[in-house]
């Protein structure tokens, strides 16, 4: 009974009535399946569209803003394309394929606008690996999946971040970001154009994998029946995508295409309707011409399949032979499956039979948009974690415990599974600096480079959604400053719980407000992103987790900053904003002490901090500093230890060992730098000299001296022992 099927497909009765209204009749099976996907949260942004409109999406170096497959900013004659996207729900069901196809999807978004992908970053969240075998399993397989796809396709994975919190036990987060390069005038759009032009589907064959992925998996809470959803997870084939990538770029190089679009969530339905909507045109498709992996697929299955490694393009009829020849050379299937019409309708044919006929606008633009009903929760939502450090521990014990904790330990066991050098651009690899640096010219001339970073700390956002989100943006910008880069653009992925619940709506509203304010303060436009809602299970929602990816520019790759101390005798200084006021609230230390993520986060001074970042950036570019590192999770003591470990050198500093907020407190606005003492004097009141680099121990003050070798061992083992 079709009248009930809409509920199974995730549509409300009111939404179903609206579809009937839009069509002027009841939808058939094909149409209902297509509407259910296009009107899902994943495709339709029903609960986030209004909020996203408040973000700054113009200005600066923006070349391509939200709405295209990926956004882009200008660097010289080039456009740097980038975007972050989630693949959370599929990864919770099948972590290897879920993570692998997450990478595959974001790569396609970038080469769909004509850019060659040059870097991948990823942001991962899991439950506590110490206590949860399932989280260790998800971690191992998600990391393997990311590596499998990125390594096999030959795009360097240059950065990322991972946090472990019990709030992610039921819903892991897998966010992948891709960065690509293209000459600015060669960017291609996805808008269909030219009535009578041919629509060609190329890439992998279409199968039953991923059917209903967008509606069933991405837009509802997970529950006990997860195993039954396994067939909804897509299977990735990086070899197919490598051919698809090279083939797509060659087609564009030869100027053969009018428009290009990748097939992601909602497959052919979303790709064709969005191309038609952007061009203000219609498209006729014949599903019988679609090459299938399995016989006897129904028309609706073909239209909603999320089989991976497929692209849709529009070209002039005279170009068809040439396009098919290029695809043939790359051993990529290509089939003309339809044409552009002036009807403004998406019409689906099965051979001669018309099996679906919908106004493009109804599918793409008429999806109902809901007002959130935010309400600050009266009581904290998240429980306290178990205490893992004894009360009244001394600073050395706390520092060691922090460095060895799963959240702060070395990520080497993860990033060693990723190829970080392919492409001959990687100037700063993981653990060499706060951000990855990629040189644009590969011939050794140095010159203009880009820096990339991805950040987001759910525990901070859980404690204060507004300030936590501001911190995520500032943290990312601070990382760029440490290598000498100025931020040009930002992409974000909003990972939240069920927005229909008032307290989640409140988190989302406040976090987006924070993101917007921080972006405006830095003068950085949002170029695009993705929203992943309904991340909650029986144990409640995830921490609200806005993940921020940023791209910056630096003028000379040879002056890229490093994080490690490098020369004995250099002065070590703290360069902090006047407003810097670190606090133990919702810090890593608070977590080890068994405190819930709550309390007052220090406010960020949005006038002062961008200026402070500029000071650091200029000093790194000028060569005054030999190292620069942002003070972040774990506070100043952890930052100093990280500089020692990265450089393999000790340091002797004099800190007030009774001042726990100074040692381990967190809050935006401070950097640990090293360099010749006279060079640091140029910073004047900004810089507070703490001591100097040297020896084989980190000495924090009288009586607290820890050998660097011991710090390094604890740091190296913290995560490695769990994998």
């Amino acid at each position, binding site marked *: 009974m079709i009248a009930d099927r809409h509920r199974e497909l995730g549509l409300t009765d009111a939404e179903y009535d609206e579809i009937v209204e839009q069509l002027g009749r009841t939808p058939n099976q094909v149409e209902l399946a297509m509407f259910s996907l296009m009107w899902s949260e994943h495709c339709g942004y029903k609960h986030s569209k209004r909020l996203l409109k408040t973000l700054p999406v113009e200005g600066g170096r923006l070349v391509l803003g939200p709405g295209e497959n990926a956004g882009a900013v200008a660097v010289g004659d080039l456009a740097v394309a980038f975007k972050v996207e989630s693949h959370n729900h599929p990864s919770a069901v099948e972590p290897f394929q879920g993570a692998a196809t997450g990478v595959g999807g974001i790569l396609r978004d970038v080469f769909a606008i004509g850019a060659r992908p040059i870097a991948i970053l990823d942001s991962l969240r899991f439950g506590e690996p110490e206590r949860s075998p399932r989280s260790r399993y998800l971690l191992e397989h998600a990391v393997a999946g990311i590596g499998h796809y990125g390594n096999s396709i*030959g795009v360097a994975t240059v950065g990322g971040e991972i946090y472990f919190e019990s709030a992610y036990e039921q819903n892991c987060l897998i966010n992948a970001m891709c960065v690509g390069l293209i000459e600015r005038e060669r960017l291609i759009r996805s808008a269909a154009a030219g009535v009578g032009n041919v629509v060609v589907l190329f890439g992998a064959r279409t199968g039953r994998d991923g059917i209903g992925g967008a509606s069933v998996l991405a837009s509802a809470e997970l529950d006990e029946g997860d195993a039954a959803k396994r067939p909804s997870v897509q299977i990735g084939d990086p070899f197919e995508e490598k051919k698809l990538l090279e083939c797509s770029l060659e087609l564009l190089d030869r100027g053969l295409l009018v428009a290009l679009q990748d097939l992601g969530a909602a497959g052919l339905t979303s790709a064709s309707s969005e191309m038609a909507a952007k061009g203000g045109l219609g498209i006729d498709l014949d599903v019988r011409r679609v090459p299938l992996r399995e016989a006897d697929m129904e028309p609706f299955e073909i239209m909603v399949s999320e089989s991976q490694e497929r692209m849709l393009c529009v070209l002039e009829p005279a170009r068809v032979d040439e396009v098919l020849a290029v695809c043939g050379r790359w051993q990529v299937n290509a089939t003309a499956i339809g044409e552009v019409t002036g009807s403004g309708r998406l019409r689906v044919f099965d051979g001669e039979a018309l099996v679906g006929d919908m106004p493009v606008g109804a599918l793409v633009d008429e999806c109902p948009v809901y007002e959130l009903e935010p309400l600050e929760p009266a009581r904290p939502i998240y429980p306290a974690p178990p205490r893992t450090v004894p009360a009244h521990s001394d600073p050395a014990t706390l520092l060691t415990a922090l460095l060895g904790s799963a959240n702060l330990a070395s990520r080497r066991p993860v990033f060693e*599974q990723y190829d970080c050098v392919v492409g001959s651009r990687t100037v700063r690899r993981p653990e060499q600096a706060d951000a990855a640096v990629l040189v644009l010219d590969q*011939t050794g001339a140095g010159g203009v480079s880009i820096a990339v970073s991805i950040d987001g700390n759910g525990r901070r956002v859980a404690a204060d959604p507004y300030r936590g989100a501001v911190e995520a943006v500032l943290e990312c910008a601070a990382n760029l400053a440490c290598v000498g880069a100025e931020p040009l653009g930002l992409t974000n992925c909003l990972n939240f719980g069920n927005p229909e619940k008032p307290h989640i709506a409140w988190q989302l509203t406040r976090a987006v407000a924070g993101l917007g304010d921080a972006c405006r303060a830095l003068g950085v436009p949002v170029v695009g992103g993705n929203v992943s809602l309904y991340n909650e299970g029986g144990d409640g929602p995830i921490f609200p987790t806005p993940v921020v990816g940023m791209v910056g520019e630096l003028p000379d790759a040879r002056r890229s900053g490093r994080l490690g101390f490098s020369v004995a005798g250099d002065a070590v200084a703290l360069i902090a904003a006047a407003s810097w006021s670190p606090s133990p609230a919702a810090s890593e230390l608070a977590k080890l002490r068994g405190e819930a993520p709550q309390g007052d986060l220090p406010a960020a001074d949005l006038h002062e901090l961008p200026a402070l970042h500029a000071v650091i950036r200029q000093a790194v570019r000028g060569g005054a500093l030999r190292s620069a590192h942002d003070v972040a999770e774990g506070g100043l003591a952890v930052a100093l230890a990280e500089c020692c470990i990265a450089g393999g050198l000790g340091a002797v500093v004099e800190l007030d060992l009774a001042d726990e907020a100074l040692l381990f407190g967190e809050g935006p606005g401070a950097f640990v730098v090293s360099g010749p003492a006279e060079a640091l004097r140029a910073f004047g009141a900004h810089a507070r000299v703490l001591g100097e680099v040297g020896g084989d121990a980190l000495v924090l003050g009288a009586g607290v001296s820890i050998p660097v070798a011991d710090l390094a061992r604890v740091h190296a083992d913290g995560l490695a022992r769990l994998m």
Partner: protein
Amino acid sequence: MKFGVVRFPGSCDDVDALLAARRVGEAELLWHADADLRGVDAVIVPGGFSYGDYLRCGAIARFAPVMVEVERFARHGGLVLGICNGFQVLCEAGLLPGALLPNVSLRFVCRQVTLEVVEGSSPWLRGIRDPLSIPCKHTTGRYWAPDPVLDELEANGQLALRYLPGHNFNGSARDIAGVTNAAGNVLGLMPHPEHAVDLLTGSADGLRLFQAAAA
């Protein structure tokens, strides 16, 4: 000196090898489906996952039309360098002895390693005596051959490159990182010299192989 870099579907480090070779001479890509080496003076079979490597690594690529010509070229003394997947392909093609097995960890590992040049008579290694710091990245890089074969290779001076102690993460027999054929004109190695051609990106030690070949 003109280098040719083979491009299979699934090659990943082909452009890197091309850029590295262009630092010392001319270089162009050689398409897998063309049985034509276009008059190059040296051939590089690059890294990557040729034809997806869903079967044994290199097992399909060795049958590519271009490989017929590479084999002919190698047997006539032409300079051939196989890097990572290229090394696997050359072993599959019988141009180099031994085989590459999955790493002992069964995981992909990407790490900067240090190599010792054990035997420098190959034209690819001539004049190189210092240890080389080069990135190494693969899942299937554990060099293996039966002991009597290894003894013979050692006696012939074909075990050209070894990992320094602590750098053999894949579990290769006798720490072998690279081997040559008996004549020395064909060299295969798992580490990636084309990713070590500039201090800016970490090391310039790998450039010396290209320079040696061009000299």
